[in-house]
């Protein structure tokens, strides 16, 4: 496994990060160094080990499916970079 410029481009795209062409080489090197270090994990025998996603030991609590909060349009829009008529405004999505 090695991280090249194309991998950086692909990952940057998935992460929605604009990584300029001239930085891609350097970032590929940094990611490669970190991933090689992480590679150490492959020597651990994990056959039949159940992955651990949460240490809480309890399953997610359920509650009655009813509205507990709401009517806060102004609060929700208070920090919007751009808003109009109670909506967030974004660049045009459909031509």
């Amino acid at each position: 496994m090695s991280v090249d410029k194309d991998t950086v481009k692909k990952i940057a795209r998935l992460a929605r990060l604009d990584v300029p062409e001239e930085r891609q080489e350097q970032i590929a090197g940094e990611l490669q160094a970190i991933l090689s270090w992480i590679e150490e994990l492959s020597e651990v025998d994990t056959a039949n080990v159940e992955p651990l996603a949460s240490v809480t030991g309890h399953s997610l609590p359920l509650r009655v499916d009813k509205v507990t909060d709401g009517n806060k349009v102004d609060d929700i829009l208070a920090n919007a970079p751009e808003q109009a008529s109670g909506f967030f405004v974004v660049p045009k999505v459909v031509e």
Partner: protein
Amino acid sequence: MNSYLALTATQARAALQNKEISATELTNAYLSAATATEALNNYVCMTADKALEMAAASDKRIADGTAGPLEGLPVGVKDLFCTKGVATTACSAILKGFVPEYESSVTSQLWSDGAVMLGKLNCDEFAMGSANETSVFGAAVNPWSAQGGDDLAAGGSSGGSASAVAAGAALLATGTDTGGSIRQPAAFCGVVGMKPTYGRCSRWGIVAFASSLDQAGPFTRDVADSALMFASMAGHDAKDSTSADASLPDLQAALQASVKGMKIGIPAEYVMDSMDEAITKLWQQGQDWLVEAGAELVPISLPHTRYALPTYYIIAPAEASSNLARYDGVRYGTRIEAGHSLDDMYEATRAAGFGDEVQRRIMIGTYALSAGYYDAYYLKAQQVRRLIKDDFDNAFTEVDAILTPATPTAAFPLGVKQDDPITMYLNDVFTVPANLAGIPGISVPAGFSDSGLPLGLQVLSGAFQEDTLYTVAACLEKQAGFAGQPPRHAAMINQ
């Protein structure tokens, strides 16, 4: 002014109750001290007016006999906790100008117990760092310095919190700890930092980094203050699905309890070549102190310790890459208009808004979660995480607590570890395992390096056994008699 700053929270609380001092006087003393130590860059925003309003309300409640457990005690808040009406940025350019319409559960509990908010404290951007150097506001500076030396790192990510408490610019401070972000800076600055059991403190309203690891906790001057503040921060919260519905042990009794007969585990795997000799000595000294107090030492093995850091550097970035997807320039924070499409806007906003370390971790996390690599990296890391937790579970069938160094070195000069991310990551070698296992840990200042910098010892206990943690920590504190005050602190405050 100095007499106010000399009081611990426990002492200040008694002095307030006995009306020897007022909350307004105490708050003014801290606001002045925070201004006098401004060069340490530990506050990113001071809320003096709000502090004085809250202090006046505290004085009224004290007069009325309705004082809460933290009534009138001045607290600094890590800028990762959302505070209603007060800018909250996670020290990132992407949250510039963000003013929450709500208050985090932990800070709500502090205010309803009577605490007074001094302001927001510096930290690494999105809590990603070990030296507070990734903050968009610049690094917080350690109030300690080696004789005539350079500015030292306060540690990270909660560098501002540790620096402020050490410098006397806050009596108490909140922090968060995902891989050591409370315990490492506490050790660097000579204060007490505690990471509770995962689930003790609600994560609601705290800017998320890695949700399965993040836990809020207190920074204080001594162990008794730590227990006092932790009790206020902890508690079940229906708004955090991972919040534990478990009652708190009797912490005041724990502080008075003896370690006599307790079994203290000493893990073989925590002996590291790269460790400062002074730290090796201090660790031995800590063991001797506990034996003198009647505890029994038990050699233990935590065989997967060396895999903790690589495991963490998959799990934490993976969760971060998912959590940080929300910063897209649509609902809050910075937006950079670019290109023609929504995607262009997202990419430009995120590239401009996130700093280098945050982008690096988003990239690593995205890679580890991407098609074709998920099993090799993320699933593998989750499996090793279970083995690490099993190591601790096994150890705690034999021992009550574990004693380790808090950090492999004393505080280092700012700027020296920026070139190589992995060197920086190694700072957290002793603290990361507790986050992966979800167990509590505390860093107690216990000695000095050869150049006179504070060093910490770490105590770990089983999940939800913070009482054991505090009993051992109180014993170490008493035996160590750490009474250090950063020399620069005294100079600045007396100016």
